[in-house]
């Protein structure tokens, strides 16, 4: 499971990404960050962010209101 949880609910673009990057910087390689967001745009953005930075999007789901992302830090 996640090593750290980032609650980005209620925040809009680009704050979930900026806060996720900051949180990932504080983690060791291989550790997993869980991000919670209510921004529908964060789905496409976290996929793009992970593709571009090489961090691994391990899992994502949404319960209709909150989007949840599991991101593994890769060096």
């Amino acid at each position, binding site marked *: 499971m996640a090593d750290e949880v980032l609650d980005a609910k209620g925040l809009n673009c*680009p704050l979930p990404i900026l806060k996720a990057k900051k949180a990932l910087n504080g983690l060791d390689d291989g550790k997993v960050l869980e991000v919670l967001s209510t921004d529908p745009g964060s789905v496409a953005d976290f996929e793009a962010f992970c593709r571009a930075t090489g961090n691994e999007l391990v899992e994502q789901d949404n319960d209709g209101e909150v989007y949840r992302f599991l991101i593994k830090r890769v060096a």
Partner: protein
Amino acid sequence: MAEENGIKVPSNAKKMTIICTKGSLDWAYPPFILATTAAAMDVDVTMFFTFYGLQLLKKDLKLKVTPLGNPAMSMPMGGMHMVMPNMVGMIPGVTDMASVMMKNLIKKKGVASIEELREAATLSDVRMIGCQMTLDLFELDKSDMIDEIEIGGAATWMESALESDINLYM
């Protein structure tokens, strides 16, 4: 360029520059959103602030948005959208009112303030260059600007632009 022990070392990161020419609240967003997001995606970012864009570097930001000459400014209000006729935009006080409305909307929707985005940019080592010519032209003082900036001119931007993958003008 990354810094190690105070020595500048070339980096292999992708690079981007943005020329920021506008100083209104609405136009302040695109450059700061893209700069901070690019930095979060490991891009080396240089922002060059010229003409009205230089206002975005002031310590004390008093950014405004005006409906005047902007027929696309449609503000949500009570489930409807309000578009102000240009004539109304000319009335004294309407720009201030529109600016307060926009700032309230920004807060309500969880959108970052320009101050927050600018701080995020400085914390993620976005390079910010204020235009010397603009300082002279509008009789502005570097001491009114945030400390994290450097001052330069067209050639300073050009040097960065030549080695960048993306160069944007806003």
